């Protein structure tokens, strides 16, 4: 391998790694706030990409029906709860967020589908369709289980993943899709060419990570999320609702997942089940960080991207095996160090 190939592989690895970083951060966030290991993260990646691809082909994406169905269910659940509490404010809020808003989004999607609007508009619409599924999922599957054990939450998480993957197959079919690149530009840095799309991935990831950092360290809602993760009882005593924090965490995770899918759809062909593998690689990164540390998770995820890239050069048939085998020494090391901490206490 000469330097040029090494740099090319590094570019590839960093591009995928940046996506894994985003997914790892979302996984750590969701776990810290809700104790849910967010397996369906991958479906958000696939849905984001495939929804955009449908718009790109001038079709109405099937996720619109998923959004409407999910929102209708939440509306029903909320309406029953609001009626029992005789809480009209809650009913009004549910009607707005789970009735009117999804209807408006669906209407806009239906209107825009045949028009083949500009890429940024299509992206905005795709996000508007897929992101609300985060809080919908939380409300339906996880909020009722807020007090359940991590294991029960994990089982529900796997079930939700399987259900969503099935729905993905139903709505998008088995064939994969690719979307046009954000930019066709090719930049030359000395010896190597860097694709415009790679730069988009780097840039958007950096901006998104920075935005998350500012959100968590500067805004009171961001701090409230951290507080719920640190001490749930303490947070509730400050008036921070666990359900609000959970819904917000799922919204952010869904946004990160869908946007990641949109970012890589021009680079990789996305199938209805591709998201799962991509999500798992983010998960490996998150595990390196012990599902707790954001910087370590990000570093781990970037490493996963690089290892995957070099592995595909030397032993492409084994690249997935190599990446997932990586988790074993990490888990071993983790279990040993965690053991010591427990002994100290």
């Amino acid at each position: 391998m000469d330097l040029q190939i090494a740099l090319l592989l590094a570019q590839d690895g960093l591009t995928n790694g940046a996506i894994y970083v985003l997914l790892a951060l979302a996984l750590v966030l969701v776990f810290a706030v809700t104790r849910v290991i967010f397996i369906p993260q991958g479906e958000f990646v696939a849905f984001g990409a495939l929804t955009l691809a449908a718009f790109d082909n001038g079709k109405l994406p099937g996720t619109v029906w998923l959004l409407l169905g999910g929102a209708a269910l939440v509306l029903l659940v909320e309406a029953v709860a609001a009626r029992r509490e005789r809480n009209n404010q809650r009913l009004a809020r549910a009607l707005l967020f789970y009735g009117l808003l999804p209807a408006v989004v669906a209407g806009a999607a239906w209107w825009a589908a045949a028009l083949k609007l500009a890429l940024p508009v299509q992206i905005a619409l795709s996000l508007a369709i897929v992101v609300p599924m985060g809080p919908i999922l939380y409300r339906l599957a996880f909020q009722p289980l807020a007090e359940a054990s991590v294991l029960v939450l994990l089982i529900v998480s796997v079930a939700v993943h399987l259900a969503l993957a099935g729905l993905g197959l139903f709505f998008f079919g088995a064939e994969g899709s690719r979307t046009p690149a954000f930019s066709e530009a090719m930049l030359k840095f000395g010896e190597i060419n860097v694709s415009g799309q790679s730069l988009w991935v780097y840039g958007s990831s950096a901006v998104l990570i920075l935005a998350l950092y500012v959100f968590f360290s500067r805004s009171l809602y961001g701090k409230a999320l951290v507080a719920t993760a640190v001490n749930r009882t303490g947070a509730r005593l400050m008036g921070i609702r666990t359900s609000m924090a959970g819904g917000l965490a799922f919204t952010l995770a869904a946004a990160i997942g869908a946007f990641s899918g949109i970012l890589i759809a021009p680079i990789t062909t996305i199938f209805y089940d591709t998201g799962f593998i991509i999500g798992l690689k983010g998960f490996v990164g998150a595990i390196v960080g012990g599902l707790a540390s954001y910087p370590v998770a990000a570093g781990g995820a970037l490493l996963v991207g690089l290892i995957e890239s070099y592995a595909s050069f030397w032993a492409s048939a084994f690249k997935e095996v190599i990446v997932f085998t990586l988790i074993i020494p990490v888990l071993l090391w983790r279990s040993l160090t965690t053991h010591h901490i427990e002994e100290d206490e």
Partner: protein
Amino acid sequence: MNRQAMDCLVEPILTVRGLKVSYGKVAALHHVDLTVGAGQIVTVIGSNGAGKTTLLSAIMGLLPSDGKIEFAGECHARVEVEDMVVRGLTLVPEKRELFASMSVEDNLRLGGFARFAAGKRGHETAMAEVFQRFPRLNERRTQLAGTLSGGERAMLALGRALMARPKLLMLDEPSLGLAPLIVREIFHIIADLRDTGTAILLVEQNARAALQVADYGYVLETGDVLIEGPAFELADNPKIAESYLGIKSAT
């Protein structure tokens, strides 16, 4: 001054009638009646395991209960903790429940979350007031809450609760596990809070100090109110002096 007379003098902010709380089949509170008037300091004293924490948890909505809890003129069967906070009730729990890995300043800011979420501003004024009351917290504003000393932790828990500008502040053994000097400081601060018009429901094992700052007191024993009365009367009551104050003065 008897119970009825006191009820007439001040508008009650909290009225508890026939409160019953059980853990599984075991009742921890049997039938508790309790009233806190607006701006009053009311104390509940009782030994370990009497049910003091259970009482506050039930009022706050952390535990399900039977009976009537009326706060700020509103009566609800089963309320969420978060709703009680919004309505002006704040609890400083026995375990403090601070955000250990967050700074003193962030802990305080989060104390005002319910007000912030309701669109009320004035965070900075509230914070300045807290720092004025607790200069020690100001010195340590960037320090992580988990690295504070016991006394500082108690102050942060109190300061964080004050950020919510509660109508009724419930304190669960604020002096627990603190050095005598710090205990005195904490009780000074509680007495000072009287000027802000905040009503306080103070739960204590340190009966002597509690009866000194309080207007009215209840003695709780194994889930029932044994005696109640104006604080100075309770402090002079020979039965209480023997079983609650006597033990304290001996140690």
